[in-house]
């Protein structure tokens, strides 16, 4: 059951987006988020939406695959939507019992949930089209200036990419230990919150033990292959901007300028 999480996974395909430099994709995601939250009327929203659909088409990732990623946060979306719907004051449209829906509430609820959905799909395109390693490389390069003020950028990005590598392994391991304890009569489903938390001990202790053992093994394996921090390291796939990336930057600039010009006019 735990294996079906698709949020934040890489989807191998051959597309323009897959071959872009991760820095371009990081930057464009940032721009996309800014414009998404700056869009406060239908026209601007339409521009964001059309752009998103264009990008989805370009990514060659099946749309159904992206929607699957939303499954895990459906509850969150519904709760956020309901809160907005019922708890925003304004001109009352419908009311029953103690609930009332206002015009502002309805608008906010629709805007809020659609923003969330677009935000998640938009950012998931970044992770779907970029390998975890490229992503951390991109972050390491983009945030390289922080090294000057003593932030260990290389170490952090190394930790991130190792974490990403081990997430599926640990998920599988959780599944296995859970089954093994269930075979010994453990119960992970029933009972109150405290009882449930207590029942997690037989799952969490072995999981931590295993994580530490793996960390220990991995540190030996890394040392054995001459790992010695970021100093003097070279790269097999160094980040280099191509003409494709330049064109992408021009597109992003055009999109941003266009968006804010429209926003200024309206």
């Amino acid at each position, binding site marked *: 059951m735990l294996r*079906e999480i698709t949020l934040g996974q*890489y989807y*191998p395909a051959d597309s323009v987006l897959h071959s872009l430099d991760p820095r371009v994709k990081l930057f464009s995601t940032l721009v996309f988020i800014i414009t998404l939250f700056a869009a406060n009327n239908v026209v601007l929203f339409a521009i964001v939406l059309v752009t998103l659909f264009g990008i989805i088409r370009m990514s060659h990732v099946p749309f159904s695959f992206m929607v699957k990623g939303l499954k895990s946060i459906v509850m969150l979306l519904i709760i956020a939507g309901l809160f907005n719907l019922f708890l925003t004051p304004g001109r009352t449209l419908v009311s029953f019992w103690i609930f009332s829906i206002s015009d502002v509430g309805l608008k906010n609820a629709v805007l809020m949930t659609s923003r969330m959905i677009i935000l998640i799909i938009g950012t998931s395109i970044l992770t779907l089209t970029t*390998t*975890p*390693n490229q992503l951390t490389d991109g972050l390491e390069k983009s945030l390289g200036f922080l090294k000057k003020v003593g932030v260990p950028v290389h170490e952090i990005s190394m930790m991130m*990419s*190792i974490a*990403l*590598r081990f997430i*599926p*392994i640990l998920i599988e*391991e959780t599944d*296995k*230990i859970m*089954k*093994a*304890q*269930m*075979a*010994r*009569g*453990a*119960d992970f489903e029933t009972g109150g919150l405290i009882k449930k938390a207590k029942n997690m*001990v*037989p799952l969490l*202790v*072995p999981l931590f*033990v*295993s994580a530490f*053992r*793996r960390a220990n*093994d*991995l540190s*030996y*394996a*890394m*040392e*054995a*292959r*001459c*790992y*010695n921090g970021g100093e*003097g*390291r*070279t*790269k*097999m*796939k*160094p980040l280099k901007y191509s003409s494709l990336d330049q064109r992408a930057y021009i597109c992003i600039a055009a999109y941003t300028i266009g968006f804010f010009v429209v926003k200024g006019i309206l």
Partner: protein
Amino acid sequence: MSIIRAKELVHEYIRRDEEGNVEAIQVALDHVNLNVEPGQFISILGHNGSGKSTFAKHINALLTPSEGTLYVDGMNVSDDEYTFAVRQTAGMVFQNPDNQIIASVVDEDVAFGPENIGVPTEQIITRVEKALKMVGMYKYKSHSPNKLSGGQKQRVAIAGVMAMEPKCIILDEPTAMLDPDGRADVLQAVHTLNKEKGITVILITHYMEEVVDSDYVFVMEKGKVFMEGKPREIFKDVDLLKQHSLDVPQVTLLAHELRKAGVNLPECVLTRKELLEALKENYGHLIRTQLGGKLDFPESHKKQNNPADNVMILDHVSYKYSPGTSYEVTALDDVSLNIKEGEFIGIIGHTGSGKSTLVQHLNGLIKSTEGSIYYRGQDIYDKDYDIRDLRTQVGMVFQYPEHQLFETTVFKDVQFGPKNQGLDEKEQIKRAYEALGLVGLPEEFYLASPFELSGGQKRRAAIAGVIAMKPAVLILDEPTAGLDPKGRDDILGLISDMHEKRGDTVILVSHSMEDVANYVDRIIVMDGGKPVYDGTPKEVFAHYKELEKIGLAAPQVTYVMNDLKAAGFDVKTDATTVEEAKEEILCCVK
């Protein structure tokens, strides 16, 4: 000049208390002297805790000697100046395939080493390509390691070392966690490196079959090298190896037993071919040429099928992963089986044949997508059926069961199952005592933390945790995975003892034919989610040629008997254990 030269090498693990005072000293290496010449294929044998892994870590400068010296290609490993040069010269591959792959894409992982030593970009690309091609993994270069099998991951790890262009490669039990297919692939890759690229190989293992082809063997025990020589010299002394809880290949053991019984054979036989040639030479007059092509398939002794004897019935059970999506995988395909009370069953099949999925159905951890399962006449998918009760009736010991230990003491951990059954404290304690007694764990460990035990002891404690629930059916999924020969024999002996004493129904999942043939009464062979053979070991192994096609093999002795038969000796071919083969050959030659 020797590539590796150890002189009076000593390593001590020192345990200190909180104030930094020495609490205990454990001598892991005790004055080891050893030389390895460039281009050799060396094997180091020894059971768990013999110091072989500690020695391997020295060659890679991951550990430094407490006393004595170790030179790798003329560099002293104790000298910090050479640390990285040593690691480049002698690369290391570890046991667990998952815990040594750093990157999320195969080629990026292979590039990790060269990147660390600052190789220019263009050269890294050619090195990675070359290294992946050497181990036959080039076509997987942009795959995620999580999607690869264990054997493939190990070959990626070997490529990762080769990309650093070392002179020597050390493999620390690289096949311990793999299935037979994966083992064969990894070994073949290593032999190719040795023969074609002239790389010095140091293979640490406890699988004797892997050692036969090496140039020189060191056997370690208690931190000392206690035997060394060519494989033929080492395997000559079967009794001495047995005393030190080490194995010999089945053929060697058979030849040794025959020789002891007075058969005229050379002192050490390593392969099937050697045994056949020796018998032909000395006993050629017994060969009968007129023998027809009649194959003797053993007769099937199917007993009357009395439905009341069946403890479990599987009726047209199918299981699909993610049904209805493009990821749909059929793991079980219309399986119908009867399991009788008191049977000892072995289920064999290669990785992905559906054997683990099958056994997880038996205690309701997985619910079938189609078909029904009956336990003592009751449908376990019935709404009113208590599935948690079934789990205590059908006990399941998973692969690497020691990974589920969590309590502060061994005793409490074993109590966990009975506690969940809702038994009172007194009964819980009684059950735990009994179970720990049955698995033969010494009493001094009952109150120790489970994490302080050795590998074999941990496994016993974990098995006790399941037995304490007094299940009527006991399922064990690869109970011997990762253990050394002694640990393996102990655990299997224990299981078979329990079966005999308590009359439990036992189901043993395994991919080792030798293990299964020695103990079980019935074998079910799984392939593609279906049982393809079902019968006594003799019946099943008679199909040894078909078994090979699905990635399995009969025990070595079955091959020996078939070789003899094909050469014209008048023997029956249905022997599945060394003992049976010995009797059969003795009958023939005497």
